[in-house]
């Protein structure tokens, strides 16, 4: 069962729109069993949601900037990094926050409409937090691959049509 759960999660992770009936035949379970398994994984917060991978640079009207910010902080007694991380990740423009090993503590990814918007976020919100010692902001120039998906992948089949 464990193994089938992993298989199901991996299938959904690469294609969240797979139909339950298709998943069921692929992993050799009944549709009912598969539904139950998905419910269980949702209830256990193993599956948190279903989203699309969008290459925004192919959406003409869309303008946006992403920045990755390295943040050094002073950990708070009793709460470690968690409290300060929460104060940062609560901002809706913050898309990801990771606690890192190495030269800095938190890696924060922020999305905004313009560079100015992001600069404001950094100078007004982030660096003014008590525990924040320093920030280094890197703007993303181009996304090549995100969450395992290559953005400009040619997906044409290069095989000949019929072969032995």
């Amino acid at each position, binding site marked *: 069962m464990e193994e089938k759960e992993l*298989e199901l999660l991996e*299938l959904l992770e690469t*294609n969240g729109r*797979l139909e339950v009936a*298709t998943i069921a*035949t*692929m*992993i*050799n379970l009944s549709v009912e069993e598969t539904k139950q398994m998905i419910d269980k994984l949702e209830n256990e917060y193993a599956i948190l949601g279903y989203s699309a991978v969008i290459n925004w640079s192919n959406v003409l009207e869309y303008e946006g900037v992403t920045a990755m910010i390295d943040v050094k902080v002073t950990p708070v007694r009793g709460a470690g990094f968690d409290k300060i991380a929460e104060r940062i990740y609560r901002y809706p423009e913050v898309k990801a926050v990771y606690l890192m090993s190495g030269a800095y503590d938190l890696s924060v990814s922020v999305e905004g409409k313009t560079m100015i918007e992001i600069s404001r976020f950094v100078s007004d919100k982030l660096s003014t937090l008590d525990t924040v010692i320093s920030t280094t902001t890197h703007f993303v120039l181009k996304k090549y691959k995100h969450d395992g998906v290559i953005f400009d992948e040619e997906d044409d*089949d290069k*095989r*000949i*049509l*019929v*072969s*032995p």
Partner: protein
Amino acid sequence: MSPSTKNSYLSKTVANLEPSGIRRFFDLASTMDNVISLGVGEPDFVTPWNIIEASYHSLERGYTAYTANAGMLELREEISNYLKYNYLVEYNPLNQVIVTVGASQAIDLALRAIVNPGEEVIVIDPGFVSYAPAVTLAGGTPVAINTKSEDEFKLQPQQIEEAITEKTKAIIICSPNNPTGSVLTKDELNRIATVIEKHDLIVLSDEIYAELTYDEEFTSFAAITKMKERTVLISGFSKAFAMTGWRLGYATGPVEIIEAMIKIHQYTMMSAPTMAQHGALEALKNGKKSVLDMKTSYRQRRNFVVNTLNEIGLSCHQPGGAFYVFPSIKSTGLSSEEFAEQLLKTERVAVVPGSVFGATGEGYIRCSYAASLKQLDEAMKRIKSFIDQL
């Protein structure tokens, strides 16, 4: 001498060789647009990146010369380790391993090394299209055994007994099989081995799909008691590592036969492509994870396709390996050529008529599930619509 004084410049052997049914079907499919092809006998994955990168790197470092005739020693050692570790068969990399231009060349070399004019080699029908012509080109006579659908197209020991004459030299077995996907279990191989031993036959065991078995652990024929000394194990990188275009395979076996194969190879081929050998080295050293990922994906798609075809009314058993299913189309009343041709013309789905794999394949089609799930889903819908309209 000109063609006017002779009917043809061609050798009689070649002139009499049947043109490949696959080729004819390819020509037909190539004239059409928007075709979904389930007719492809190769993985839909691109070669894993680490393998491609290793090959690039070998070129950058200037590895552009011939290798030893038998292949780079380091690669032969790695092949030897791989077979020992995965299938419990041991070969000396110094004189029992040859690296070839695909399993295809290994088959050709093995046959040329052992067949005397007029000797017979047993081939399984339905089976891989190259065996019988390769036997003929080696000067031998192919003798077909017709496996039966009720046996899931698995070779029965009794059938070997019936096919044997005093001219029989060897038999080519292939498990998992192309086109049926059938896998012979250890028990079944044991029973086949008894007959082989009794009649002192050589076995060419084509194990190119060994990594792609989904239900039971794969058993190499060379791992069956007393069979190693009479078996040429043939395999390659094409299917397991998605490296068809690299043209790299290998054979292992008794010293006498492998050395004979190397002798032919050094005169006719020199060595297998060097850059491909460097890629293959990386494949064996660090390719396991990619192979397992691809295997999982094939198994899932197999389940989907077998299920859907049976629902549609094209009955097929669940094959244990390779990436083919071989459903019966007898219920439609069409021949397999007619079925495949009409399906292609009306619904733009290419499959391969079973008859190209031998007479026993008549009444069946080969569908490859080495295609994306999206394509498979669409193809199944089109096949259903085709059948509903018959």
